[in-house]
């Protein structure tokens, strides 16, 4: 790292970063880890030296002597490190569940505002979900207790494709119903010619694309583009697919591969989390943010 001055580094720490979330760690935990890393490394660089203690002593009736001596009260061992964990605001723009891995966006300092806007704009996210046919588990994930077993050999790739396209179509129909406009009206027509639209409500999940990208034996991989989704929704979706195919299914992996313009290649692996890499990533993400203004400020209901 070329710059050793802590204040300069601190001033550059504004914006959003894109990290890779591993499975079985909560987003809150990741937040604490990042804050700790940044603060410890900042404290190792050249921080502000203690301010001197100006002592004015003597008899005020006669003459006073002014002396400057080192101020122990401002020593880092007494007041604590210069950069403390509480001083660094950090918030996430999408909450991934405990078992989900993948792209996660954090806002640092003034970037927390951008993170909030990104969240409220409801950009689409893409997931790659791996599933296994033939077994249903209690929680729909691979760690859960197996509650049901079934045959799966009758399921072929084309069955899967047919079901997924039907599901996608019904979701798109729902998307227009949810915007609150009569489908037979002129207004509805004008909305429809814009293409895909995002829902006003931030709670109801809407799926825009559903595709089986790999089908091999009982294992299958699905790629899904959606908004407002959450982990349980995705696991129940896989469960539902299993039932519709006259079999049962559960998830083995849920991975977020894209969040608006941020993809896996921007995401920083946990082992690479240090100040240097975080700042590089920050600059990269801020560039993407400045190139795509619609991420922060959204005017149209049409999907980006």
């Amino acid at each position, binding site marked *: 790292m070329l710059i050793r001055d802590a204040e300069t580094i601190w001033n550059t720490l504004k914006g959003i970063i894109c990290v890779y979330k591993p499975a079985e760690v909560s987003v809150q935990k990741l937040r604490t880890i990042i804050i700790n890393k940044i603060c410890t490394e900042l404290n190792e660089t050249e921080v502000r030296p203690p301010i001197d203690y100006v002592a004015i002593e003597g008899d005020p009736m006669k003459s006073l002597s002014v002396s400057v001596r080192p101020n*122990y009260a401002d020593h880092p*061992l*007494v007041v604590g490190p210069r950069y403390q964990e509480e001083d660094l605001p950090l918030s996430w723009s999408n909450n991934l569940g405990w078992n989900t891995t993948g792209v996660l966006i954090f806002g640092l300092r003034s970037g927390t505002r951008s993170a909030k806007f990104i969240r409220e704009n409801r950009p689409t996210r893409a997931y790659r979900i791996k599933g296994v046919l033939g077994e249903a588990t209690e929680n729909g994930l691979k760690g859960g207790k197996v509650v049901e077993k079934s045959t799966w050999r009758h399921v072929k790739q084309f069955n899967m494709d047919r079901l997924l396209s039907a599901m996608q179509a019904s979701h798109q129909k729902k998307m227009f119903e949810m915007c609150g406009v009569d489908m037979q009206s002129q207004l509805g027509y004008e909305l429809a010619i814009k293409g895909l639209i995002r829902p006003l409500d931030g709670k109801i999940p809407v799926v825009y694309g559903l595709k089986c990208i790999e089908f091999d034996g009982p294992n299958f991989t699905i790629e899904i583009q959606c908004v407002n989704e959450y982990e349980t929704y995705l696991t129940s979706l896989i469960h539902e697919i299993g039932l519709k195919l006259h079999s049962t299914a559960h998830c083995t992996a849920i991975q977020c591969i894209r969040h608006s313009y941020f993809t896996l290649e921007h995401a920083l692996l946990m082992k690479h989390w240090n100040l240097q890499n975080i700042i590089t990533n920050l600059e990269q993400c801020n560039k993407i943010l400045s190139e795509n203004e619609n991420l922060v400020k959204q005017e149209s209901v049409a999907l980006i």
Partner: protein
Amino acid sequence: MLRRIVKLSVRNNNCVIRNCSQFCENINKNTSLQSTNYIQTVENSLHESNNSVLEPLNEDISHVSTYLKPTFNFAAYINKSETLQELLKLGVHLYKLEKNEEIVQFILGLKFENIKDHILFLNDLGIETEKIGEYLTKNPLILKEDVENLKIRINYLKYKKFTDDMILRIVQANCFWLTHSTQQIDEHLGFLQNHFGLSGNEVRLIATKSPKLITYPISKVKLNTFVLKEEMGFTQEELKKIILHKPSILMKGQHRILQAFEYLHRSMNIPLERIVEEPEILTCRKKRLMERHLFLVKLGRDQFDPKKPNYVALTTLVSETDSYFSTEIAKSSIQAYNAYLKSL
């Protein structure tokens, strides 16, 4: 920061007020502030001159000041207190001691003469001066103990045939050892000896290898022994072997070692005998184990049998850095490994 200050000051308010008075008494005894005499002098001067209070006062009263206001840290006191300054020079992280109210009260009431002996005692044991600050940060309550008691505790170790190097290692690695009485230490050493059937030398080996284990709660050691013996199925002899090799396994979280074991035994098909030979593998995080194992599986290099070619040793699998692992063990590249990690 502000929120923390408010929270702390609210919590510490009561204790700090008490500290304040205690500390000021201390200062008054030591320094030449003489602030307690202030009221007397003022009263005397009033009586002598019979002046009205409205008359201007010619005397110098600049040394009179109010008591220190309630505060939440040592910073308010340190410029006036020599003891705190000496502790700072030793390198004690004073801000870390502020978390515990009792310790704050105790430290503020200290005089440097009283703790000099403790510091000299630690220095005589062979702890370097820079390390003493670190030691006192971790265990400030050692200053409460009598130096004679501490000497008895060291003598006990010498009586039990611990060499000076061993004692230094024990004291440095486990800061809380010396705050335990000889009875407690004796009880814990005896427990280990009986529970695992160890000889005298073996007990000394374990105590030096992992000094924290001796002061670790016995109930937790028993719990981890249960996990190793009943849940994992190691025999008493195997257990002894594991403990002599890696005593700190008894201090790890029970779920953590069980998870690592289950992955090793069920997914990687490592027999118990192999784990006994390399027990440090049990202390490895399951996630790390899984990432590396799955990468080897993908490359077709998951060969953990020492009798066959292309064998991968369990300890080297987890102990080395990612770049070493990906190039030397997996015979791939770090870029490929990173890309693989992003696909998990």
